């Protein structure tokens, strides 16, 4: 059953994880794989932690990734990568956006910040790439394209043709922001190339 590739996208509600997971799913589908994607909508979203999962392979049954079998983690935020860490395989790869969104529990002084966050990330993910996705997107004109920078950064680890990615991105991003998102994807891809 291990011919399935498991990808988790984690972040904070509103960061654009859903669009990224849709692009990855679409790319996998165009590459000829069976694909399933799972996420939970509803009251858990607003400012809270969000997780979206994509699985692809010859035939995928469960839409949920079995515990500890996530091959690739795309984390939109530093703290959220740690929250999901135990679900990632020891051999897994983490692509992490260098951004901190301070939780209200910390900003209001109820809980201390994690001072050793980078050390923990290194311990949790022997293979990790921390990239300045938000800064890259900002330099291109809109930090909302952070999700496509991260998707581009992930793309090097998946064996799909570049054309497949181009088509998936073009189909799914809002038409009026297509150029920006295509560029953001290419920049992300360059960073991990």
């Amino acid at each position, binding site marked *: 059953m291990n011919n399935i590739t498991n990808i988790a996208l984690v972040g904070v509600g509103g960061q654009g994880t859903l669009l990224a997971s849709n692009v990855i799913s679409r790319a996998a589908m165009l590459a000829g794989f*069976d*694909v399933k994607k799972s996420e939970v909508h509803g009251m858990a979203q*607003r*400012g809270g932690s969000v997780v979206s999962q994509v699985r692809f392979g010859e035939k995928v*049954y469960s839409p*949920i990734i079995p515990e500890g079998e996530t091959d690739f983690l795309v984390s939109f935020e530093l703290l959220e990568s740690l*929250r999901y860490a135990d679900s990632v395989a020891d051999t897994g790869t983490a692509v992490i956006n260098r951004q901190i969104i301070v939780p209200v*529990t910390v900003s*209001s*002084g109820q809980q201390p910040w994690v001072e050793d966050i980078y050390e923990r990330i290194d311990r949790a993910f022997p293979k990790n790439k921390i990239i300045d996705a938000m800064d890259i997107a900002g330099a291109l004109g809109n930090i909302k394209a952070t999700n496509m920078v991260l998707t581009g950064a992930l793309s090097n680890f998946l064996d799909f043709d570049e054309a497949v990615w181009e088509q998936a991105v073009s189909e799914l991003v809002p038409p009026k922001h297509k150029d920006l998102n295509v560029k953001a994807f290419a920049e992300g891809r360059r960073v991990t190339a």
Partner: protein
Amino acid sequence: MTDNKKFLSGNEAIAHGAYKAGCKVAAAYPGTPSTEILENVSKFKESIYCEWSVNEKVAMEVVIGAAFAGVRTLTAMKHVGLNVAADPLMTMSYLDANGGLVIVSADDPGMHSSQNEQDNRNYAKFAKVPLLEPSDSQEAYDMTVEAFAISEEYHTPVILRMTTRTSHSSGIVDLGDFTPLPSSGRTYEKHIESTIPTPLHARNMRPKVENRTNALREVAETSNLNRIEPGSDDLGIITSGIAYEYVKEVFPEASILKLGFTNPLPAKLIKRFASSVKRLYVIEELDPFLEEQIRAMGITVQDHKISLCMGELNPFRMKQLRSEIYGEPAPEIRSKGVTEGLPARPPVLCAGCGHRSVFYALNRLKATVNGDIGMSKPLYAMDTVVCMGASVGNAFGMEKAGYKNRTAALLGDSTFFHSGITGLLNIVYNRGASTVIVLDNRITAMTGHQNHPGTGKTLMGDATKQVSIEQVARGVGVDRVRTVDCYDMAAVEQVLKEEMDADEPSVVIAQRPCIIGSRVKTERQFVVDFDTCKGCRICLRLGCPALELGDADPNNPKLQKARINHVLCVGCSMCQQVCPHGAIQESPVATNN
């Protein structure tokens, strides 16, 4: 056929299935995880009339009416919504579904966004109607089409049972020939012996329901929705819905009887399968709905210690069961040792949310608050929550029980229209003095911004009459109706105090459009004057995500002062209003704190 393959969520697939089946009328009230079904049906509004009904009971009655008229029709609701709609459902089972009538029940195992995890498969058995359980998006599409066919052939409503996971996970769906099936050509003709259940008629209808169930049992025996997937004869598993996917993942060697048509059950097929395997397990999510019926057939089902009857299933729980069945070591969740002390990130009220001032005032007034669904975030501010609209009756009941503390019912605008009005009328009629607070943000916010009778817009996108909460309240006989701006904190507190203390029924409408919907950044901006701030943290009691604490003095690490995050702040001024030191001031231009 590659062209007709789409990547769809279960909910999107149902909408596509409704279109394919030639559905003409769809009605629902929003509720997670069912909401996207009607939102996606509305994308086919050229072919399908669709609406947000005022509540699930009305939605059910609308589609029953459409079925009487002979067209194919669909309603969708979350599991608890079917409780609201249960009255018409139970009797519709006896009446003639002249047009195909499909009821989608989206259950929520694990209670991702619900107050209970009732298993609505029981409703199908209770109401004696057919039940289909899709396992993925392809089946959600196919079974929607099939459900219409069964309904129309047997003149019965059919329940299509989804769960959060099947509704909200996506998969590849082959839509095949995606042109709507032709209409049945049926029209309404008066035949009251099958549409008016007077006792005389109902007694004649009753055996017909029984005969229909017997006929459907034969359909289930040969339906391609129920199939045996042969494997090892050592281990046999009967399963349905999402559980099938986990079984396939974790027990690839087992023989499987996959049931998609689960009421009435195909007894002969089940017996045949049971006799073909040495050990038989039934694996299903939530109640032992299949297992109890299978045991009642006299079939031996293996017991297991790992309980599956509570919460959402997942591959890990399936692996635990596997280890028990095979006597293998239990799977473990390994810890990487990096999660200790991670600060929580709970969902919060948005910066600028109008609800905040009402919760803040109720807290200061030490009021007992009977809350409602959709208001569930600031739990600390409420005392009770039961179901949609219950706050109103609950507050009145506490009053009649002699409870003397300041008490209020608290519900949203959409919930008020859904089921708050009848409770309010009851207070007036029965000489109560309760206070009902309507948090009026002009949208059904909790489920993701659906329109309702107060918004002036329908699901089809048409403008419509905007119903006034104030006029409704006055119309049912409430004389004390007051409207207050949520951003005026002193007024909110004053009005709430006066109305809770008044000796007659009252309604307070606390208004501010949902900040997410309006997306209007106000002109105002506020800053904390660092020298004036005493670090008292009173402003933080608002729980506003735009308020942060920062170090104030390098020599005194314990002293922290407030800061305003201008990316999040929308300028509602509540923090300025609560600061006792005058440290928060309006700033004319955007600054970087």
